[in-house]
Every structure is written in structure tokens, then in C-alpha cells.
């Protein structure tokens, strides 16, 4: 068995205890302690592989601690703390248990030293995260959970088959760098791609995240996709194909986010766009690019959680996250507005905020690797980020059209945890070397050069000026209740309709064929009936004399023929 008590087991043990703690406050306090205990279990350990477990002919390496897994373990611990704290008021034990299992499985996957262990925790995240969507318990949410679960299980299935083929080819299940040179590695790559929301595999993200409970979405935003980023960084760093996938991922969501009415779906598109930056970094694969990806994942988890929390706080008070229903809340929710703006400035990469010090690593690595078109795509995508996450999110909730809302500020526990996340965004932005010191590869990078700060401010403020003019001249997209079709239309409408049409025509053809066959069979039966039925020639009872006569005739014919 294992020789070390893993952090994921702390989460699972806590999940087993939580349902039996009756007092809600005590339960919430107990849950808050879990991320600290989990982090403490590996914070001071030396890098190495610790927990081995025999499994059939394999010796599983359940706990591998190195530079890459440490920082992801740290950020997942922070994310678990933030999401548990934001759900302080939640009494639903299903949601509480699911969030603990989900965080524990994600952390377990990060520390997995072999593909079998990765697969087990990978499936754990799929099941636990689906329950966070199901916890909303509405017909729409349950249908969404089924779609989400199908995608997650598809990812798990691809991973499983990929591992089997990889083992057949190499005789190893070690989770380390792989080349896209066999069906097995391609399937593993696609499994990671499903969870990373590659283009055309992305819609589970925009479908499911707005469907979870407001607290559940904060939890969801942190783990699944960043686990996929970790897995790609571990397994496929330097795979050039990823550069172009990442560029596409960073670009296309900005157009959808600009016209989306549901703010949580806007943030889901934004998440997709941010993953694109990270995937580009993995594809480039240099130490600077990989550090950029890890740094970006680190800061992204915090500012994205902050943005989802601010939208969640608004849902808490207003019961809606729709642009068409919101506006003018700054008077009543000033603290929520302030924290939301910090999140927006961070994701937009304003100097002195966390996004600036992380995103610039990826852009610099892209430029220095000579990928000019990819670099330009990322610059365009950066302007897109400012549009939907930097401006649209805070503007439509707190300013925009004043809809006459008169609500209370978010509850104190929510404000405290939003304030904590906002403080981290600023601290990382002001002291980037603290973050850089945690990165897996040594990095000497100075984000605050005059050139970098000036050009970034020029780009952001001129984009803001364009926004103000578009609003002023009524060119900015109007807000009203609607949805926008995306690739999910293919499997939610097109394919079911195709199936319906195919079913219809197959039924018609079958009926025609059946009628035709019926007639043929009926005719055949009639012929048989005529011969063998009660009046049939072959069924009649003949007198013995007739039979003898016929035998004599037949013998006579035979005799005649014999003489011919």
C-alpha cells in the first residue's frame, strides 16, 4: 500500500465526514480547514515520488511532487479555499460533498505519476463536477448535466483506450512527455483536448457552467480545464499542433462573448479564450513559454474565480445574470463592483494587476519563437478579452442601463472572499517575482519595462475609447433576451433532426417493404393452401383403387420408356 498520506485522501476523508456534521456553521468551518490541511501535507516535502501501490503487474506512482505538480497543487488548494469560502452559506450537502471530492480528485490527478492513477482521478473529477451542475435540480440543469457528463465520460473513455494502446506499444504507463506518433498517444491527446475545450470540443463549457449553482460555477471554473492544461503541459509540451489550436481557441470565443446575454456564459467563453493563451504556451514548449502557461493558469484561476464570484453575488441579490436584465447596481453593491473591476483589470492585463505579469510571458515566448501570426492572433484576442471580460462584465452589471434594481450589498462572507481574491490579483501584479519564484523553470523576466507598460496602456485605453464611442453612437450590440447558436447546435438540434428524418424514412421504407413482403407471403401461402389445404389436391383422401391405378399407369410409362 501507499507509504504516504496523500492530499487527495484528506479531501475524500473530509467528504465522507461532512454529511454527518449537523451544525451548518461547524460544517462550513470544517470544510474551510480542508484546503489548508491538504496543502500542508505536501508543502514542505522534497521533490520526488512518494506513494507506490501495486496494482496487478503495475507499480502505481500515486504521488509525484515536482516543480510542475507543486504549483498546480498550490493553485488548486487556493481555488478550493476560495470556492468553499464563497459557498459559506450553502447548506446543500450534495454540493458540499461534490465540491470536496472534485477538488480532491483534481489534486490527486495533478500528483499522479502514472497514467492509470491519472485516469482514476480524471474520472473522479468528471463524476463530482457533474453533480455540481445537477445540484441546481431544474429540468434544464439535469438535461445539461447529461450532456456535460457525456462529454466528460467520452474524454475518460478516450483516455482509457489511449492508455491501453500506449501500454501495448511501449510497455509503460508512466505519465511523462509523449510524442504524437501512435494511435494511443493521439487518443490521450484528444482526451486532454476534450477537457481543455479545444475548438469544436468546447461547448460543454459554455453549456454547463451557466447551468450550475452560482457557487458551483466558481468551483467548476478552477479545476477541470486547468487539470487539462496541466496534463497537456506534462505530456505534450512542445507539440507544434497545439500552437495553432491555442491561437484558434484564443480568438473565436471573443466574438461569441461580445454578443452573449448570459454573463456566466460570457465568462465561460472568456475562460475558453484564456485557455487558448495557455495552450499556445504549451505548444511553444520553451521554458519561458511553459512558465508563462503555468503563471497564466495560476493567476487565471484567481481572477476568473473572482469574476464568477462577482456575477454569483449579483445572482444572489437579483436572481439573474442576464445583461438584458441588469444595470445600475453600483449604487447598491459598491464593494462587489470594486472587486469585479479588480478581476476585470487583471484579466485584461492592466499593469499592476496579475494578468499583466503572466500573459506577457506567453506573448514574449510566442514572439521570440518567431510565430508572428500566432502572436498577432494573441494580441487581437487580448483586445477581445478587454471587450468582454474587462468592460462588458462590470459595465453591464453595475452601470449600463439602470433597470431600477434596489438591492442589498453582497453578504459579508462573500465580500471577504472576493476581497481576498482581489488582494491576490493586486499583490501578484505588484510583486511578480514572488510568482515567478514558484514557476517550474528558472525565469529572468522583467514585465515592467517602459516600452511594455506604455504599449499595453495604449492598446487598452484606445480600445476603451472605441467602446465609449460605440456606446455613444449606439453601435455597441444591444442587450435583449436571446441565445446564440454555437457548435453544440450540431448535436443538440442538427443531429437529432437528422436522426428523426432518417427514422421517419426508414419507417416508411420498412412499411412499404413489409406490405410488399406480406403480399408475396400471402400469395405463397395461398398456393400452399390450395395444394395442401382441406380442399387441396395433395391433401385430398384418395381411394386405394385410384392409387393402385396411378401406380399401374406410372409403371406402364416406365416400362414403355425402358423399351425406347
Amino acid at each position: 500500500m501507499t507509504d504516504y498520506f496523500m492530499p487527495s485522501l484528506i479531501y475524500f476523508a473530509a467528504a465522507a465526514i461532512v454529511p454527518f456534521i449537523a451544525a451548518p456553521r461547524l460544517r462550513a468551518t470544517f470544510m474551510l480547514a480542508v484546503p489548508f490541511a491538504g496543502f500542508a501535507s505536501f508543502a514542505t516535502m522534497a521533490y520526488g515520488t512518494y506513494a507506490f501501490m501495486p496494482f496487478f503487474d503495475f507499480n502505481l506512482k500515486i504521488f509525484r511532487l515536482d516543480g510542475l505538480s507543486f504549483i498546480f497543487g498550490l493553485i488548486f488548494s487556493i481555488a478550493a479555499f476560495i470556492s468553499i469560502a464563497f459557498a459559506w452559506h450553502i447548506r446543500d450537502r450534495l454540493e458540499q460533498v461534490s465540491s470536496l471530492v472534485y477538488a480532491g480528485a483534481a489534486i490527486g490527478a495533478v500528483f499522479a505519476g502514472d497514467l492509470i492513477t491519472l485516469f482514476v482521478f480524471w474520472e473522479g473529477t468528471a463524476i463530482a463536477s457533474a453533480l455540481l451542475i445537477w445540484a441546481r435540480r431544474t429540468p434544464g440543469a439535469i438535461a445539461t448535466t447529461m450532456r456535460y457528463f457525456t462529454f466528460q465520460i467520452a474524454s475518460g473513455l478516450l483516455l482509457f483506450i489511449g492508455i491501453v494502446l500506449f501500454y501495448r506499444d511501449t510497455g509503460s504507463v508512466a505519465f511523462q512527455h509523449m510524442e504524437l506518433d501512435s494511435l494511443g498517444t493521439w487518443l490521450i491527446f484528444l482526451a486532454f483536448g476534450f477537457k481543455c475545450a479545444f475548438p469544436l470540443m468546447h461547448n460543454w463549457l459554455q453549456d454547463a457552467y451557466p447551468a450550475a449553482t452560482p457557487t458551483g460555477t466558481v468551483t467548476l471554473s478552477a479545476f477541470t480545464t486547468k487539470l487539462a492544461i496541466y496534463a497537456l503541459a506534462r505530456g505534450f509540451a512542445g507539440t507544434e499542433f497545439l500552437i495553432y489550436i491555442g491561437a484558434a481557441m484564443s480568438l473565436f470565443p471573443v466574438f461569441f462573448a461580445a454578443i452573449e446575454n448570459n454573463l456566466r456564459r460570457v465568462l465561460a467563453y472568456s475562460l475558453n479564450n484564456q485557455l487558448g493563451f495557455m495552450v499556445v504556451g504549451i505548444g511553444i514548449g520553451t521554458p519561458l513559454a511553459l512558465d508563462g502557461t503555468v503563471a497564466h493558469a495560476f493567476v487565471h484561476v484567481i481572477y476568473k474565480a473572482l469574476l464568477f464570484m462577482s456575477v454569483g453575488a449579483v445572482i444572489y441579490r437579483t436572481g439573474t445574470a442576464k445583461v438584458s436584465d441588469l444595470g445600475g447596481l453600483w449604487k447598491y453593491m459598491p464593494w462587489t463592483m470594486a472587486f469585479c473591476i479588480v478581476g476585470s483589470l487583471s484579466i485584461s492585463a492592466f499593469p499592476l494587476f496579475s494578468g499583466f505579469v503572466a500573459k506577457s510571458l506567453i506573448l514574449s515566448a510566442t514572439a521570440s519563437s518567431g510565430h508572428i501570426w500566432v502572436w498577432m492572433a494573441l494580441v487581437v484576442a487580448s483586445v477581445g478579452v478587454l471587450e468582454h471580460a474587462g468592460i462588458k462584465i462590470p459595465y453591464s452589471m453595475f452601470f449600463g442601463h439602470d433597470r431600477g434594481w434596489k438591492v442589498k450589498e453582497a453578504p459579508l462572507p462573500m465580500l471577504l472572499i472576493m476581497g481576498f481574491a482581489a488582494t491576490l490579483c493586486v499583490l501578484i501584479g505588484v510583486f511578480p517575482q514572488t510568482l515567478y519564484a514558484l514557476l517550474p523553470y528558472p525565469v529572468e523576466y522583467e514585465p515592467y519595462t517602459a516600452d511594455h507598460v506604455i504599449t499595453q496602456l495604449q492598446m487598452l485605453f484606445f480600445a476603451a475609447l472605441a467602446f465609449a464611442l460605440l456606446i455613444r453612437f449606439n453601435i455597441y450590440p444591444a442587450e435583449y433576451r436571446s441565445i446564440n447558436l454555437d457548435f453544440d447546435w450540431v448535436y443538440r438540434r442538427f443531429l437529432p433532426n437528422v436522426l428523426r428524418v432518417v427514422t421517419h424514412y426508414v419507417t416508411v421504407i420498412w412499411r412499404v417493404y413489409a406490405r410488399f413482403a406480406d403480399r408475396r407471403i400471402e400469395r405463397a401461402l395461398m398456393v400452399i393452401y390450395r395444394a395442401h389445404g382441406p380442399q387441396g389436391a395433395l391433401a385430398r383422401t384418395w381411394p386405394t383403387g385410384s392409387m393402385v391405378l396411378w401406380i399401374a399407369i406410372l409403371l406402364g410409362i416406365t416400362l414403355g420408356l425402358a423399351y425406347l
Partner: protein
Amino acid sequence: MNTYITKPVLIGLAVICATLVGADFLRDGHGYFSFENWPLIYCAIGFVVYGVLIILAKGLRVLIERPENYYGDLAIDSEPEPGMGPIAPEKSGVPHD
């Protein structure tokens, strides 16, 4: 009517942008690509890309927009957002009439 992008806000933004145009002379011209050193290139990128992005997105909307209940009961789009636990309903705010 949109009441927040007022003339003072526009003037304020214009002043900041004018300052940043002036700051362009402080750049040391150490971009990775030669066109990065063109004067005011990042001002143009920010302004033009933002405008083009919005216009393209509006064009896309014409093609892909559908009513909120397009997917019927199989989606959350026309469902009300749930409260956040048992204390949510009585604390939730309501809009003015």
C-alpha cells in the same frame, strides 16, 4: 437610455489617450517585430481591433441569434436563476416598478 458614457467620461478618456500618444515618444523601440516600433501602432491596434471585433460580432449575431427558449426544456436559458441556498429568497432584491 444609457446614462454612464457621458461627455465628461468621453473627455476624460480622450485626455488619457492623448497623454498616451505623448508617452509614445518615451518608448525605447525594443519590440520583437519591426512593425512594433511604428509610431502609435498599439493605439491603432487597440482602437481598430476593438471596433472591427464589435462589428464582426454584430454580423455574426445576425446569423446565429435565436429566441431564448430555442432549446426548450433541455436548457437553462429560459429558467429563472436559482437562489443561493435557503436564505436567498427573503434577502434577494427586487427591481423598482
